[in-house]
């Protein structure tokens, strides 16, 4: 499909036209591949080899008393062990809760903040800067600060709750199996909503002023203008933001690792912290590798469907 003929073709015929397959397209662009070859080689070494090594390792048993080079072939044992363990199910549930809740609330709060900051008002610049702080400060530092805020004896949040009469005793946020995950999710949302806010603010800037004016003349209320003009326009950037948040949340480690280390009693473990513990805590390299491979497959599948959904609009536009 060339651009020149694409214009004349009706959308129907464009959709049914067959795409040339990947290999003939690659052959047609072989010199292009030559140009990116050096970068490809570097990427092979730093990305492809570790992936290969992880996959290899996932088929071996590596008891703590063994050197890594003395690993024992185990076939799919690691996979069956991981998939059938109850810890895996608990950690997976935690990861899903962690990812979905963090992504959803970060996005909604970020969108809300972006919308409120989009209007002109005195002190807007200051607010913008303030709301950006969570994303700018180091996650490690923030985690330590929040750990203190949540502290059962010295924590500001617990003390405030008592002072305001919500509870008679400071709540034990982090040392309680029931509250620990939600408490960590709150910290994560606090950190991530400002990222979503920045993305959505950028998106809002691209909403055509004329469309909003047209809607205003057409009699649309502010809510209708948002719903019929702004929101559809933000679809693309929203999907990218949600994808990035999801990937980041599936791969989170800093906040739980620093604030609870997965405890108490594994209640706040999510995939990456658990993998880390298996590998570097218990030297179960094979099991950790199998874990990582499973996570990798899940992420790839997710990413594939997401990117596909994301680019569908583009293809229609290119015709």
């Amino acid at each position, binding site marked *: 499909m060339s651009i020149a003929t694409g214009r004349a073709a009706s*959308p129907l015929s464009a959709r049914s036209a067959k795409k040339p397959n990947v290999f003939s397209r690659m052959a047609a662009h072989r010199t292009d591949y030559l140009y990116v070859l050096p970068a490809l080689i570097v990427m092979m070494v730093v990305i492809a080899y570790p992936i290969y090594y992880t996959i290899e390792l996932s088929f071996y048993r590596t008891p703590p008393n063994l050197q890594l080079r003395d690993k024992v072939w185990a076939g799919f044992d690691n996979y069956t062990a991981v998939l059938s363990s109850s810890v895996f199910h608990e950690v997976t549930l935690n990861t899903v809760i962690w990812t979905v809740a963090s992504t959803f609330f970060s996005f909604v709060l970020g969108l809300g903040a972006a919308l409120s900051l989009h209007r002109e008002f005195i002190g807007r610049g200051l607010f913008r800067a303030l709301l950006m702080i969570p994303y700018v400060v180091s996650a490690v530092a923030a985690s330590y600060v929040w750990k203190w805020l949540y502290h059962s004896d010295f924590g500001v949040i617990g003390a405030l709750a008592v002072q305001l009469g919500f509870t008679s005793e400071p709540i034990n946020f982090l040392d309680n199996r029931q509250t620990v995950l939600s408490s960590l999710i709150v910290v994560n949302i606090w950190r991530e909503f400002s990222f979503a806010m920045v993305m959505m603010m950028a998106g809002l800037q691209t909403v*055509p002023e*004329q*469309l909003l*004016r*047209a*809607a*205003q*003349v*057409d*009699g*649309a*209320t502010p809510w*209708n203008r948002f719903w*019929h*003009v702004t929101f*559809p*326009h933000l679809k693309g950037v929203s999907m990218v933001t949600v994808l990035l948040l999801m990937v980041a949340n599936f791969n989170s480690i800093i906040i739980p690792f620093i604030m609870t280390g997965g405890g108490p009693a594994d209640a706040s473990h999510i995939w990456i912290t658990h993998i880390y513990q298996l590998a570097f805590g218990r030297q179960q390299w094979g099991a950790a590798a199998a874990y990582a491979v499973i996570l990798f497959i899940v992420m790839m599948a997710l990413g594939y469907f997401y990117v596909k959904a994301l680019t569908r609009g583009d293809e229609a*536009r290119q015709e």
Partner: protein
Amino acid sequence: MAQVVLQDIVKSYGSLYAVNHVSLTVDDGEFVALVGPSGCGKTTTLNLVAGLLPMTDGDIVIGDRIVTDLDPKDRDIAMVFQNYALYPNKTVYKNLAFPLQMRKLPKDEIDQKVRAAAKVLDIVPLLERRPRELSGGQQQRVALGRALVRDPRVFLMDEPLSNLDAKLRVQMRTEIKRFHQDLNATIIYVTHDQLEAVTMADKMAVMNKGFLQQYDTPKNVFDNPVNTFVASFIGSPAMSLVPLEVVQRGDQAVLTNEAGWELPLSAMNTRKALKATTNKVVLGARHSTIKLHKSETVGAVPARVYTVEPTGDITFVQAFVGEAVVIVSLDPTVIVRPDEDVWLEFDQERMHLFDGETTMALSAA
């Protein structure tokens, strides 16, 4: 349809006056073009009429109501934008239905009005398409349709044709003109293209730097520009303007420049020239009112040919009179060459004289 009155309207951004005390009346059913160079305040004026911007001062009357404090939706206006501003995620049908939906009309009434408007604009086959599946001209028609469905009292159009290619622009020009005639619509039409204004409008309002310069029929603006700005903006090619000095010789005035030649003025032009606030005047002449002589002639002033542009049935010659460029049109059979010395004779009946200080047209009365 209704009359629109702008009463001394002002829009300032800090110390910048985007619209500076503009007053004008658009009569019921009239097609008025707001024309001027980019940045002169046309869009701002239109947005003030629409109510999309808060006005600094002044009043706007539409029909029998003062609408100054009303929201756009309550002003009963419809607007057509430069890049059409169609809702990209809605079909053509839904785009047309949107203003009616927002006014909470019953579904069957919406359907009936949308189909009627689509019929008028000949876009019935496009109703289920999305804007990006339409050509520029079709999108423009849909935008007109969306303005039309509501049966507004005034149509406001902001450079609706400037995104179209030249051929389509000429075609849509005719269509909008027809649209105006068929509906007997009151239209305020913004354009930076003076040719569009001249060809389409009943009246044109020429703006510059936020000020309304002249508001009159295209013919009157063309024949009697009020100042050098309007003179140089309207007409293609533009009127040639030559800054000169007036000297009185008895009861006759003559124009002269540094080169030392003298151009005696007719009795009427003498009266005009002597009204100037200083001895500086600007002589204005359109290309068709200037005669080119290849040898020295009484009543003609010396000039030097700069460029020659044959266009087929007419040849345009640019020549320098002192520092000023004068454009003359010639029959293509007359051959002149760049750098040739020629003499230009200005038609005393049809020349314009402007005050060199105030730039205003000088009148004999």
